[in-house]
């Protein structure tokens, strides 16, 4: 079971994380909340293995297969929406992916290159890429950023369903999103 014990991280004089501990419940969605700049993304980067903590342990996490929605979309601009999604899940058939795309209103843009997609479409492609990738833990860093209200509501419902029974670490600053995602545990990073 993934366990974060007393993690600290500083950039020069600026202390971003101070002795942060968290027990991630397997098969559940854990939500990490906090105001902008409180260290949510830094924490996720440490847990994803992209940065090292100055102190503390991330027990169980390094060996787990990971999937993620980053704060930026991080799509391959020249590849189509379909190819971007297939990059992380080549074992899925085009038909399967097409069906999932339709569920979040991405139907018809399968062959459109990423650089031709709107901001909201790009975000949903990045989300689908993470949701369809085989993984043991899923990191979601502000996954609904930039979506309009109607699309956000629909996408949250889809994501909630797709995350059922999976170990998810969901980062947001929006209380409503945390509530709609039905997180089993909500942790505030502001309080350390």
């Amino acid at each position, binding site marked *: 079971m993934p366990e974060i014990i007393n993690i600290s991280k500083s950039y020069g004089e600026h202390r971003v994380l101070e002795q942060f501990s968290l027990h991630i419940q397997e098969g559940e969605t854990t939500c990490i909340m906090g105001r902008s700049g409180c260290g949510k993304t830094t924490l996720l980067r440490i847990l994803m293995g992209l940065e090292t903590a100055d102190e503390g342990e991330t027990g169980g996490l390094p060996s787990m297969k990971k999937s993620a929605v980053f704060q930026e979309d991080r799509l*391959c*601009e020249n590849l189509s929406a379909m190819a971007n999604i297939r990059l992380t899940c080549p074992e899925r058939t085009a038909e399967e992916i097409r069906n999932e795309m339709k569920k979040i209103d991405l139907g018809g843009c399968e062959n459109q290159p990423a650089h031709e997609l709107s901001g909201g479409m790009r975000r949903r492609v990045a989300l689908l890429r993470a949701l369809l990738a085989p993984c043991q833990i899923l990191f979601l860093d502000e996954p609904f950023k930039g979506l309009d209200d109607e699309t956000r509501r629909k996408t949250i419902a889809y994501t909630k369903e797709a995350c059922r029974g999976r170990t998810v670490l969901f980062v947001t600053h929006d209380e409503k999103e945390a509530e709609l995602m039905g997180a089993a545990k909500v942790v505030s990073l502001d309080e350390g």
Partner: protein
Amino acid sequence: MMTSTTPESKEGKRKGKIRLWAVLVWLAVWQLVSMWIGQEILLVSPVTVVCTVVKLAATAEFWLSIASSMIRIVGGFLLGVILGVVLAGLSAASVRLREFLLPFIVTVKSIPVASFVILVLIWVSSRNLSVLISFLMVFPVIYTNVLDGISQVDRKLLEMARVFEIPFGRQLRSIYVSQVLPYFRAGCSLALGLCWKAGVAAEVIGIPQNSIGENLYNAKIYLDTPALFAWTLVIICISVLFEKGFLKAIGYCVRRLEQRG
């Protein structure tokens, strides 16, 4: 599906396109100056050049010369491209190799072609001279451009690939190829011009049998200005056509690779 991450704008395409009217004006100027001088030995007219090309094209030697020069120069070019890409890839992964190759690259880039030609003539037969010269012109350009391209690959995409544990082969096809492609294409475009210029110059000095260089040399010896211009026109045409064909083939291969994902 796009192949390049830096799609060229319409304005950019317009700026780089050669217009027919401009070519015609230049040809008219050439014809007028030639008529004004009135001595074909000094400046041959475009009409005579075209007639000479047609006359030359009717002979088997013409095609044999083109074929043998092309095989050698293109052979050197392809060798330079393959080695340049492979060593740039390895250099991106190994600082030691990059440091080891840097003095060689800088030296090859700074040495004048003529020095190389004379030096290389001591080592290899004049027949293979243009292969080596063409290779030496192409290799540093391709190596430097591809290495630059690799260093400019979006770090965020590489982080994404690391988190998802995307195998290296798939990363190569989906991330590296398209991001390095604009640098590679620019390198090829520059290297192709260089290799034809340097390759033919090497042939003029080495004078291998049945080559474009030999024909240019003979034209100079016999003061055959129409043949000199005709062969120059042939070199320009081959160089441009080969560049267009090669870059098209590269684009096609990249699309196929990306489609394989």
